[in-house]
């Protein structure tokens, strides 16, 4: 009997202890997209070095904010590390969701001077620009454009375009040029198939149309508020130039987008481009490695930063990595962050398809030639602008989504009315938050 028992019990105990021995693990939350897979791959090295297992929960973009912000508001312990959107930094800091990292950075020789200043400002600091850090810049990103280089290179299209518009068909330098090119391709038959101009952001549910329309508004010189009088938005956010940009975006939607592109964001834009429907797609840099790799059947993709108009500017994307203050494993999470901040790991991160914000990587002489979209990324990161990063950013985002969608897609009212109403909504939010 003893023998029989030992035969069964020994493996059971062995399994039990081996599981306990490997009990050190961390859970990291992020959106489900290509860079997340790259990070999962990269993190195997962390596990190999430290023995700490990494678990990942990647949530689709459509429910990413809902899922993660619910988790933080409920003080959940699911995540030890969170790669949250740049706009969450205010809420993360003010409501105590994120651990303040200044002491940890000082103790471990991590300097924010080693990271791209625009990314530090956008992803790490609260109040904005102050030396209070709640995240380490993890994934630099901005809204940019991909185009069908193979179509652009066709001599017959080049000459037709030049005779029509008087300049070469190529990377558009302004939004006006972008519009000319989009309309040039709209409804055009290429290789026996009808093609369209551009797949632009029009999504209603989360942040899509706001991210898209602000790419135009920033290029027209829009500011959210009076730089000398915070939260005073009248005449800035609803300036004549800002309204003109919104009108222009509607014109792009009306004249250049494929039929049915009325609720489209990242995936829908990618689909429209990959299926050969459109000449241009608006999207985040994060997707360009995948788009470039998947070029086949004669498709050749080119990439460029957001075109200028009155000024040069681009919509900021990207995220910083934060330690969740409700985690019981903050020490392990900080260990991961220390590892992730290392220049050699940052280089591997870029090599795998992540967008490092480390100056050693971005400043390396090989960087620009390391990928076809690298120069565009560098250009964009120098001109990025972000949406409000206030703790109430969701309350600020929702009316903008509704009003802009109502005007751009639905054609209701005018651009000026939409912007005026957004300011009214925002003032109400700021008043409730005690900011006005």
């Amino acid at each position, binding site marked *: 009997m003893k023998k029989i028992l030992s035969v069964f019990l020994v493996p059971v105990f062995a399994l039990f202890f081996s599981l306990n021995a490997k009990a050190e693990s961390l859970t990291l939350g992020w959106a489900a997209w290509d860079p997340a897979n790259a990070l999962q791959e990269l993190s195997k090295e962390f596990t190999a070095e430290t023995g700490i297992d990494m678990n990942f929960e990647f949530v689709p973009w459509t429910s990413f904010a809902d899922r993660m912000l619910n988790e933080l508001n409920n003080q959940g312990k699911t995540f030890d590390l969170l790669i949250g959107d740049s706009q969450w930094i205010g809420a993360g800091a003010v409501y105590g969701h994120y651990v303040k990292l200044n002491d940890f950075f000082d103790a471990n020789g991590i300097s924010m001077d080693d990271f791209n200043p625009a990314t530090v400002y956008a992803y790490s600091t609260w109040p904005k620009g102050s030396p209070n850090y709640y995240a380490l810049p993890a994934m630099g990103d901005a809204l940019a454009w991909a185009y069908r280089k193979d179509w652009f290179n066709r001599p017959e299209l080049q000459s037709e375009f030049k005779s029509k518009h008087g300049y070469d068909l190529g990377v558009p330098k302004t939004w006006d040029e972008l519009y000319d090119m989009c309309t040039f391709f709209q409804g055009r038959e290429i290789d026996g198939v009808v093609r369209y101009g551009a797949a632009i952001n029009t999504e209603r*549910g989360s942040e899509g149309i706001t991210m898209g329309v602000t790419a135009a508004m920033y290029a027209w010189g829009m500011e959210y508020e009076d730089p000398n009088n915070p939260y005073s938005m009248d005449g800035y956010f609803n300036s004549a130039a800002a309204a003109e940009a919104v009108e222009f975006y509607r014109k792009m939607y009306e004249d250049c987008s494929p039929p*049915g592109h009325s609720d489209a964001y990242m995936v829908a834009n990618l689909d429209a481009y990959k299926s050969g429907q459109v000449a241009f797609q608006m999207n985040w840099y994060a997707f360009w490695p995948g788009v470039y790799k998947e070029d086949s059947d004669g498709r050749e993709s080119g990439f460029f930063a957001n075109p200028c108009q009155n000024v040069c500017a681009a919509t900021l994307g990207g995220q910083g990595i934060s330690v969740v203050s409700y985690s019981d494993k903050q020490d392990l999470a900080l260990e991961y962050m220390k590892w992730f901040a290392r220049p050699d790991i940052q280089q591997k991160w870029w090599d795998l398809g992540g967008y490092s914000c480390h100056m050693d990587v971005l400043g390396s002489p090989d960087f620009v030639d390391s990928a076809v979209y690298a120069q565009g990324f560098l250009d964009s990161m120098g001109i990025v602008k972000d949406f409000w990063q206030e703790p109430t950013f969701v*309350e600020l985002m929702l009316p903008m989504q509704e009003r802009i969608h109502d005007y751009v897609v*639905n054609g209701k009212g005018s651009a000026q009315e939409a912007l005026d109403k957004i300011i009214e909504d925002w003032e109400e939010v700021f008043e409730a938050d005690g900011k006005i």
Partner: protein
Amino acid sequence: MKSAVKKFKGLSDKAIAWIFITPTLILLLAINIYPLVYAIRMSFTNFYANKIGREPKFVGLKNYKKILGKEEIWEKMQITAHFVCWTLVLQALIGLGLALLLNKKFKGNELLTTLIVLPMMLSPAVVGVFWTYLYNPQVGLFNYVVNFFYDFGVFDMLGSSTLAPWSIVIVDTWMWTPFTMLICLAGLRSIPNYMYEAAEVDRASKWQQFIHITLPSVLPFLLLALLFRGIENFKMFDLVVELTSGGPGSATELASINLKREAFEKWKTGYSSAFAVILFVTIFGFGNVYVKVMNKIKDR
């Protein structure tokens, strides 16, 4: 054991009834009544569930006044009313028609019934995604079928503020008409044959038989089905979110979608509790009136 039986035997009928009812009552109190009372309490405060550490303040009827005075809320209510009314009308007419058809005996009757019932067994999320593709102006079947009968050209059901409210009505009708049909079918099958035999002896026409026998007999069933559908559609959320996310703009933003955005995206807990109470009272009020009318019809 014997003493237990003895003890049990000693209990009055009322006590035994309480023993059976109590677990249900506790569950009902815990998961229905308590949250309702809590929500009512919250509706008088300025509570934000995401603002940790900020004590909610009592604001009296401020939230209610704000909601009832807000033009946008009335717009959402109108959108909801449009959706509820049209889905009920269409589901009543088509559901009753199908039930009358399937009440006849013919070959393949059972197979056809099963096929018709299939949509309501699907998940609303799946139906939403599936219809998004059907409505796609480039590759969707819907445009193709409509243009087959009359050439409207390319039209975007989900991207037009005129068509989008109808697009959600169509999908809900497609999905839930089988439910109305099933209930009506149960009603039709409960009508005894001798009533029709007697009517035929009296030389009543088919139309007269329908008006004087079929319709009065099936009406309580139909009204019950419409009550269920009305309550469900007043709270409709998932299907519409999948189809339009409330867009274009706010053309299909039903009251429940707006409530979710206020409660779990903006985290205006006090305000959204007040809105939830208003919606609850509306449904409860309408439901009560409706049940009274239904009972009167039944008693006739």
